[in-house]
């Protein structure tokens, strides 16, 4: 084959490759990268108090005033509290259920199906279902003798934990699936050997299972944290924009939503979006570093 036809074939192959990548690249360019980068510009422009007027360049002023505002601080604190309530509880719950169901025993397939099931419930479904259970009149709380005033979802102290319970329930299915997959990928011989060495079940758990499971735990931590930062549907459905700030449930993403569709303030939304992005980026990088140092790799 001559060099000429070879390079012609190479060029044809490259052409085909770009053609195959094109559809995805167009979507990414228009709906991911362009709007992401546009945030940096929008953050520098302040929107007028009345619609119709042009927005004007204010440089870093808007970023400073948003980051310094008390509503931003409140939102950030609520978001972090929400994440702290949801992620560890969801991971622990998933792990405990996965350990309990990790035996070749009769009926385990059924239990596994049940424990995974909450993964399919959408935020709207979860919100409506739990909203009914938490209702001050028709719910279970009066019957249980737990009926704070104002009602739990209007209560500045209890609204955030209540919404977190919904998110934990929803996250439990995913957490269980991740933990089960991790347990199933653990080499049986190691566990068997430890058992023959006379390790008790508690020692086994801390000395063998947890180290072997650490990659799974970290994966769950990353996925769970991102999930928690992106939750706001429960709050929108059960609490709503008028009450979110008062009940301390105005999490970052809900704040973004309100800036966009209620306050019509793309500049504010852009600043908040960038904060959200950098938090998620930092978490991912931090966890990656932590992962490299701490995590036990089989055979290492």
């Amino acid at each position, binding site marked *: 084959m001559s060099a000429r036809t070879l390079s012609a074939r190479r060029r044809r192959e*490259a052409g085909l*490759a770009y053609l195959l990548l094109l559809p995805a690249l167009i979507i990414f360019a228009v709906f991911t990268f362009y709007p992401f980068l*546009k945030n940096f510009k929008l953050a520098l422009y302040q929107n007028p108090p009345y619609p119709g007027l042009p927005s004007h360049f204010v440089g870093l002023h808007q970023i400073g005033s948003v980051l310094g505002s008390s509503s931003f601080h409140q939102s950030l604190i609520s978001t972090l509290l929400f994440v702290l309530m949801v992620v560890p509880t969801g991971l622990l719950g998933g792990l405990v259920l996965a350990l*309990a169901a990790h035996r070749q025993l009769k009926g385990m397939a059924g239990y596994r199906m049940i424990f995974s099931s909450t*993964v399919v419930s959408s935020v709207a479904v979860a919100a409506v279902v739990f*909203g009914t259970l938490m209702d001050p009149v028709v719910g279970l709380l009066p019957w249980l003798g737990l009926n704070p005033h104002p009602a739990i979802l209007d209560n500045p102290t209890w609204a955030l934990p209540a919404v977190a319970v919904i998110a934990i*329930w929803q996250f439990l299915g995913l957490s269980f699936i991740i933990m089960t997959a991790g347990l199933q990928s653990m080499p049986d011989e190691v566990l068997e050997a430890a058992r023959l060495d006379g390790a008790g079940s508690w020692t086994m758990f801390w000395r063998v299972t947890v180290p072997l499971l650490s990659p799974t735990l970290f994966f769950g931590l990353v996925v769970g944290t991102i999930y928690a930062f992106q939750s706001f549907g429960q709050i929108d459905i059960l609490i709503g924009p008028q009450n979110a700030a008062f009940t301390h449930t105005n999490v970052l993403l809900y704040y973004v*939503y309100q800036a966009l569709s209620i306050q019509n303030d793309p500049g504010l939304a852009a600043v908040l*979006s960038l904060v959200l992005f950098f938090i998620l980026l930092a978490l991912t990088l931090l966890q990656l570093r932590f992962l490299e140092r701490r995590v036990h790799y089989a055979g290492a």
Partner: protein
Amino acid sequence: MPERENAVPTRRPQQRLRLAARYLFLTVGAIVVLFPLYMAVVNSLLEPSQIAHQPPPLIPLHPQWHTYPDAWSGGHMAVYLRNSAIQTSIIVAGQIVTSILAAYAFAFLEFPFRRSLFVVFLMTLMIPFEVTVATNLSTVSSLGWFNTFPGLTVPFLATGFGTFLLRQAFLQIPRDLREAAQLDGYGHLRFLWSVAIPLVRPAIAALGVFSFLGAWNQYLWPLLVTGNDNSVRTVQIGLKQLLNTQLDQLNVSLAGTVIAVAPLIILLLIFQKQLVRSLTAGAVK
């Protein structure tokens, strides 16, 4: 059930006790996990006055089946379900097609900037959709796509995760197979269609189930682009609407909720393996 415990007769009573404790724990866990959805089903079959009864009835003694047809037509659940089915099908099909094409290029073709372009695909995983919403809204509105299916779906027609998943699957295909096919006169597209795609069908199924779950349960974007128009509103936003408009008819709202979650329960029952596979891609190995 063949009991391994038989081998050690002396420890049997203790082990049976442990086994019983394990089943007890699992059953309590299952009840806790299922309780909210169970109560939704129960309450959907009660009269509103019965729902408020304390203690709450745990079994519907006189089930009111009419709530389901009420939610279906009166609550527009039929329309919302149809809309969600259309929206979800477009997104799933689009993601599968664009991912297959891109993944094939990354796995089987040689071209300049292959690595950098792959990094570009992976970078999309670092940018949450929420961060792009502000500008996407104005893009969609300038295209005249408010309250339309293109507006609901086009931003989601490509996925970095799906491309990554399918590229990994394509890389498992032995190179010899491509060379053999080449000698048989197969071009790339024919090889892709009749050899590569059939071989990675499990990975495609995993991606499909994953996309389905994500698309069906979308909340933020449909909330923003379907405004107050019934004609393209999805099930999730419809549920919010149903709850707002029929507070005195909580049973109908809950019937709507059960209708909204039913397709996904069926999906889970049929495709549990594929779903688990896609959700844990990257967790193990």
